[in-house]
């Protein structure tokens, strides 16, 4: 008789943590390709200029699209202006918070901190919460019951994915959490990965965010126009489609509970504009294997390890040709996942530990 297809429990709770630990999947040794130390050191080297250059272009694009949106307000010409503004505000910020959160985008620490805080606000990711959740994501990538950033649990929530094209689900959750944090409380899951010494930072930033939104809402009400909200607040939603478009390619549909990023992560070739907006996070296998390598060195890292990784997807379309059918099948059968094949001659993977949980 066929085994019943059941949804897995992705909650970060004691029972699931214990289960993952018993299977040897927590803080485990992951596969890393061998790169000569001198070469890796060169790849990890920090520089300010690439991110300063990119940030100047980024800010200039904000100014141009924002001013153009203001000047064309009330006409149809405002639509493309705010489409670009929203793409920058609600889309490109996903990679800015990420890279600056790792502290690798700029060599100078304060530059990472400033861009991190601004990008987090724009993309609705509370800086302290996401700093710690992302650390866990790197420790236990797509380990069920441990990773707080599994974007597509099985069976996939297709309605939720569609709503998140405009951040309607994720944004509502984000605001709910901001309100909770502003009252000096955290969720139980957040308490599991944020140390107590950091809790006050979470509460403080949540209150600052609410104060900013209050000012913008009052300004909109006073001017009887949604225009202020088109600049602050709404673009987190109307520009979120880019986060979904590129973000889903990272892990959706691939294996869970494996200790090899080549099996649970994708590298996808993208066009230069998307790579600018996404700060090369399309080289995602490489990023997970070596998080200390800055975004501007990921193409070189890709060249250094590609013989040891599955072939990259040639385009976003190619990635979605795999992802969409995989997610559709996971709706019917949550046990299904895309099993990636390693290239011939690639170094052997770290085998899953004895008793590893099979992907249900």
């Amino acid at each position, binding site marked *: 008789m066929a085994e019943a297809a059941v949804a897995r429990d992705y909650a970060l709770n004691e029972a699931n943590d214990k289960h993952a630990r018993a299977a040897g999947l927590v803080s485990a040794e992951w596969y890393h390709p061998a790169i000569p130390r001198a070469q890796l050191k060169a790849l990890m080297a920090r520089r300010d200029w690439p991110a300063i250059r990119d940030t100047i272009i980024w800010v200039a694009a904000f100014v141009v699209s924002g001013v153009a949106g203001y000047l064309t307000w009330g006409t149809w010409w405002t639509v493309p202006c705010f489409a670009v503004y929203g793409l920058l505000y609600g889309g490109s910020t996903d990679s800015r918070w990420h890279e600056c959160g790792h502290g690798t985008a700029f060599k100078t620490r304060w530059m990472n901190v400033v861009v991190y805080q601004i990008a987090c606000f724009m993309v609705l990711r509370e800086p302290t919460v996401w700093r710690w959740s992302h650390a866990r994501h790197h420790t236990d990538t797509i380990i069920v019951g441990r990773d707080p950033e599994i974007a597509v649990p099985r069976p996939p929530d297709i309605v939720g994915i569609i709503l998140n094209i405009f951040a309607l689900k994720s944004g509502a959750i984000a605001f709910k959490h901001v309100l909770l944090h502003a009252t000096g409380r955290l969720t139980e899951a957040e308490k599991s990965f944020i140390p107590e010494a950091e809790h006050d930072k979470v509460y403080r930033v949540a209150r600052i965010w609410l104060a900013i939104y209050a000012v913008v809402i009052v300004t909109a009400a006073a001017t009887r126009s949604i225009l202020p909200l088109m600049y602050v607040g709404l673009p987190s939603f109307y520009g979120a489609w880019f986060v979904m478009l590129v973000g889903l390619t990272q892990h959706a549909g691939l294996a869970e509970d494996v200790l090899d990023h080549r099996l649970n992560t994708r590298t996808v070739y993208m066009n230069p504009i998307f790579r600018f907006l996404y700060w090369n996070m399309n080289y995602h296998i490489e990023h997970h294997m070596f*998080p*200390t390598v800055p975004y501007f060195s990921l193409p070189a890292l890709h060249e250094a390890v590609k013989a040891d990784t599955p072939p990259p997807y040639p385009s976003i379309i190619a990635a979605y040709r795999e992802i969409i059918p995989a997610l559709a099948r996971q709706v019917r059968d949550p046990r299904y996942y895309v099993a990636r094949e390693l290239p011939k001659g690639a170094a052997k993977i770290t085998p899953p530990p004895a008793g590893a949980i099979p992907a249900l």
Partner: protein
Amino acid sequence: MSSGQWIDACAADAVAQEDVIRFDLGPRTFAVYRSADDRYFATDGLCTHEAAHLADGFVMGDIIECPMHNGRFNYRTGEAVETPACIDLQTYPVKVEDGRVLIKVDSGG
């Protein structure tokens, strides 16, 4: 650390300037650093946040960055200077004799 014994960790030229290598002693693991001004330092080998080998990380000036989560420590003092590293690293006295790097390790294990 007043007690302890000097242990031969590695050849002085085995560590590049502004870099780090790993040194294992039984079940214990250490990180041995050579600064840009050609001085040597030693700390525990594992990040205090999670068990990642710091010798796989990146040395920038006086800072060692953990390879897994980018937590940072001052390897001269052991001070944790960037989250998710919150707990300071244990440091160890170091001397160089006859081209060898020696670290003073307490016998308590």
